[in-house]
């Protein structure tokens, strides 16, 4: 009985709150309730153990000469930090990462938009287009790199084989410093653009159809409808996709590592690979951690700057 009378109470009479037993009846905002915490606690426990704790411990490593091989650990102050910040290889790998990002982000936004527009207009092919454009996204990275490595094969691959049909000698693709990064970017775009494409498709579906109908009555052609209605209404989505793609591209590692191992001559070694090389190949945990922290700070700064820009557009 008391339940029935108390349920609506907190809205008007917060003073009566402390008397009620927690939780069951009154799950609206109540400052003294602990119920919510019980729901949050399991996630918090995982978060603390697997994310927060490693982040803190990793920061501690940066001041030590700890090795993955074991042995004595001693405090060495800022040595790892100064080594990281003066290491030209670190700057090279940062530059490679940035170059990959500069090449891939615009490409993967524009491609996704084009594909989504095609899908939106060629309705009868919808199923086939969605399958073709999105399917590569669900491939494991190793499968993607196997297939593209085979196509890129300089002497036996599909690309140079086809070129040879026309008497053209194709490039070395992944095996030349000049072309390796472009080849990796192309393969990455093929593999990952499906996600951006999906976001665009979803956004296009939510544009009200009567806007188009009104424009059609006024005699607007296809290009006018795309230019005056679709693109402006997708501005927020485009900003979001650009942000997500930028953050994603800055974190690149796996496909490059599998396709080129960072070569030739380190021309495609990314920051994440350099961290991996230092920590798991060179066994220098402290150095790898300080690199990771430098990189983390850069990514967080880029993310925050992007989100700022993005939210300003929104408002």
């Amino acid at each position: 009985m008391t339940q029935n009378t108390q349920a609506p109470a907190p809205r008007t009479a917060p003073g009566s709150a402390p008397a009620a037993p927690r939780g069951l009846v009154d799950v609206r905002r109540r400052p003294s309730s602990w119920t919510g915490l019980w729901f949050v606690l399991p996630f918090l426990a995982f978060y603390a153990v697997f994310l927060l704790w490693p982040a803190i411990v990793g920061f501690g490593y940066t001041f030590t000469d700890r090795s993955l091989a074991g042995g004595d650990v001693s405090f060495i102050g800022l040595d790892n930090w100064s080594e990281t910040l003066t290491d030209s290889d670190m700057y090279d790998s940062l530059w490679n990462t940035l170059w990959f990002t500069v090449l891939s982000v615009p490409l993967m936004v524009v491609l996704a938009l084009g594909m989504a527009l095609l899908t939106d207009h060629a309705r009868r092919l919808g199923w086939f287009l969605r399958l073709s454009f999105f399917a590569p996204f669900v491939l494991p990275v190793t499968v993607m790199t196997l297939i593209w490595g085979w196509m890129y094969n300089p002497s036996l691959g599909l690309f140079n084989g086809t070129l040879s049909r026309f008497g053209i000698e194709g490039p070395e693709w992944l095996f030349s410093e000049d072309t390796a990064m472009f080849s990796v970017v192309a393969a990455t775009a093929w593999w990952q653009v499906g996600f951006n494409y999906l976001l665009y498709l979803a956004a296009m579906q939510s544009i009200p159809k009567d806007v188009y109908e009104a424009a059609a009555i006024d005699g607007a052609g296809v290009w006018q409808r795309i230019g005056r209605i679709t693109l402006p209404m997708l501005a927020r989505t485009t900003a979001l996709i650009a942000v997500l793609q930028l953050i994603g591209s800055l974190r690149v590692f796996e496909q490059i590592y599998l396709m080129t191992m960072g070569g030739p001559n380190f021309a495609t070694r990314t920051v994440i690979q350099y961290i991996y090389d230092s920590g798991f190949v060179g066994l220098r945990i402290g150095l790898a951690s300080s690199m990771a922290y430098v990189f983390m700070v850069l990514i967080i700064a880029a993310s925050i700057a992007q989100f700022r820009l993005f939210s300003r557009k929104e408002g």
Partner: protein
Amino acid sequence: MATSTPPAPRTAQGPATTAPRPAAPRRRRWSVGSVALYTVASLAAIVWFAPLLWAFATSVKPEGETTVMPPTWLPDNATFEAYTSVLGRGDILRWTMNSLITTVIVTVLTLVLCVLAAYGFSRFDFRGRPGLFALIIGGILIPPQTLIVPQFVLMTQLGMVDTYWGVALPQVVAPVFVFILKRFFDAIPRDYEDAARLDGAGPVRVLWSVILPLSRPILTAVGIFTFIGAWNNFLWPFIVVNDPEMMTLPVGLGTAVGQYGIQYAQVMASAVLGALPLLVVFLLFQRHIVTGVAGAGIKG
């Protein structure tokens, strides 16, 4: 044809809009413009799908035929030899099982933990709530790849190297899903819960029988993307697993290729086999993926 776009009928029926109806027949069914559009769209789709076809074409060739120059798309003597020899080794099946086990652990735990946390943050107030929420949201900014070194040390100390739990547990923490789910729960009107609450339902029951059924699209979307992400994750399993028996599919395939030498048909056969599980999942859940993203509001 599975037109998974529900909005399509909207324009097709539209008996209410009287004006544009007469205009429609005027546009001929196959105008020059639409022929061009469908041609471009088909070509783009075929080009995009070609690498997968090429992988398959190579995989059904006898080894001697794979290196014929210039390349041919149709094998002269199609054979599944490469598949039988790859499957005969047995490790691909083993890795697929490993991937399945770890991916299911990750997906189930992620859904349970994130749903509970999002519900807690969305429907309750408690001491420290704003601070805890900010702490979790802040975690979105930390790139998981930068934590591999301390996470690996932690896993060594916990004795979880080369175990399913070692692969799965660090992948479970997904603060971004707490954020997305909370936003979705926030948008569910509280009136729905009132009736259940008046009947004496506790918070768990409200979550189970009111909130969750209303959240099916977002749960599907989060579930599918967690599944794809965990299945295809490479870096972490690559680091935490050394025992070939415990490798996941992407890691196992990466290490195995060296053993195949220049057996290109076998390499492509293993690539096709590695691609199959998720392609099937994708075909089954196609419509849910698009509508899930649309409903999730991830689209921004």
